């Protein structure tokens, strides 16, 4: 757990907060002859993330986890509610402030391949956010470029890829390698909050452990906070301090991970905990 001392967790300031988020999708009718339908993906969702801690979001497939992630980062309009980052309402920021805020709010996407530009080299993808515009002498620019390249290579190595991979294109990587490219891209910016959507679901157990340890290490180094979406309750147990359980667009249970694991209150949570695969054979 990232904040060993529960006292610390209680006293930590809230860095990201969502109040009463509602998001509805409209589904048009089509060839199979059904009318248009409304899908309430988020139904009055509120949560708060404490600085330097990890909040896991678990729940059934289709329960609204990725929608929540996108709304938290303002990548998606929502019907009502608000998202506060360090107390400021993100929707009320002008385009400029929102852009500078973006650096502090990063996302690791669920579908790694769809989120990597196939025409860019991995070094460019990971380094993109680091590009510092503005004036400067030619030699200053050159120094910055070298520094950026360094950072990118170091980050690639930390996620278990090699510096030489910077020159390759996304399609030259395996599924798990692509997932790690997405993680490197988010972490290289040294953000304050990272929303990770199933960040280790495609990784073998060794690389998974390596990435989880890296996330914890960076959390210690830089006071990072994570929203950690995962359906793997074994992973959640290791990485998260607090958790929320979503079901059909609503949060049905929330609290400290230890408490929920020891005494799940809701039937759905109990079902989740008892369905961890491998138990049957064990």
């Amino acid at each position, binding site marked *: 757990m990232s904040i060993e001392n529960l006292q610390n967790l209680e006293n930590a300031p809230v860095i990201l907060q969502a109040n009463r988020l509602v998001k509805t999708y409209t589904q048009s009718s089509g*060839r199979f002859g059904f009318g248009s339908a409304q899908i309430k993906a988020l139904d009055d969702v509120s949560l708060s993330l404490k600085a330097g801690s990890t909040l896991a979001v678990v729940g059934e497939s289709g329960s609204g986890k990725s929608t929540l992630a996108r709304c938290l980062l303002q990548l998606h309009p929502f019907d009502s509610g608000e998202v506060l980052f360090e107390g400021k309402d993100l929707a009320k920021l002008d385009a400029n402030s929102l852009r500078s805020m973006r650096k502090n709010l990063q996302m690791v996407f669920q579908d790694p391949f769809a989120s990597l530009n196939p025409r860019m080299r991995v070094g460019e993808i990971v380094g993109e956010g680091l590009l510092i515009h503005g004036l400067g002498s030619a030699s200053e620019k050159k120094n910055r470029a070298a520094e950026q390249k360094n950072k990118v290579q170091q980050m690639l190595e930390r996620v278990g890829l090699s510096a030489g991979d910077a020159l390759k294109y996304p399609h030259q990587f395996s599924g798990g390698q692509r997932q790690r490219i997405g993680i490197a891209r988010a972490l290289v910016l040294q953000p304050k909050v990272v929303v990770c959507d*199933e960040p280790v679901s495609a990784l073998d157990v060794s690389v998974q*452990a390596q990435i989880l340890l890296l996330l914890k290490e960076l959390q210690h180094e830089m006071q990072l906070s994570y929203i950690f979406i995962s359906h793997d309750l074994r992973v959640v147990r290791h990485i998260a301090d607090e958790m929320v359980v979503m079901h059909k667009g609503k949060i049905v249970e929330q609290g400290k991970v230890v408490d929920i694991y020891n005494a799940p209150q809701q039937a759905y949570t109990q079902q989740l905990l008892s369905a961890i*695969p491998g138990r049957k054979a064990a």
Partner: protein
Amino acid sequence: MTEILTINNLNVTPKNDPHRFLVKDAAFSLSPGKTTCIVGESGSGKSLTALTIMGLLSAQLQSTGSVIFKGEDITLLDNKALQKIRGAKIGMIFQEPMTSLNPVLTVGYQIGESLTAHLGLKGSGLKLRVESLLQQVGIPIERANSYPDELSGGQRQRVMIAMSIACEPALLIADEPTTALDVTVQAQILQLLDELKTRMNMAMLFITHDFGVVADIADDVIVMFRGEIVETGTKKQVLDKPQHPYTKALLACVPDAEGKKQLKPIDYAWLKDGLNDKKAAA
């Protein structure tokens, strides 16, 4: 027992770097009514092996070796003959749903496509079959009208599963088919596949990094490491008495449900010693 699929001397290399083996000298066979799981490190060649069997390697890569399906070397077939086998006799679930779903067609249409092409289903018969498939993978039937990007990650994955089993293939190749699914839905899908295996005597090649899943569904296990198959055996042999140093190291990384075990990636220095000992012994 007669094998349904046998691969021999399978090699995969980049066309522009024919000495770099991404898959090296792979060989195994699959029997009807049995599930064989492939496990192994990220980037070890699991997906490339599956894609080679399907004849779907990307244009930059080339393969040698034989793939005998029902007595016929399918690497020698032309594309038209292969297409008749793909989808109808060999189903495949790809690791990244978005790269294999067509974004401009509804998912109902895409599930129906192979039923029309291979079984000649049309009209209300087709509609009923598509709805039944959606139901079996736990997606509300009205979502047949959705486009892939209107679905959640796990819903897309389940659409792929519905497509792959639509024609009740004799062999199903599944590449990390449940990575995006929560445990309750995962359990439902694993049960569905297991049922097909028993009822249709289907053979299944199942790539996963989740040892809980292996424990639940595998009959046999293949372990890949750096492009090579380093161990094969029954589930019991491989999980209880692993022989190869890599298998031992990998099993030591499996997280426990209680979160008591420390997260620890493979110690490659230690593994190297183990591999050297093995070489010396040989």
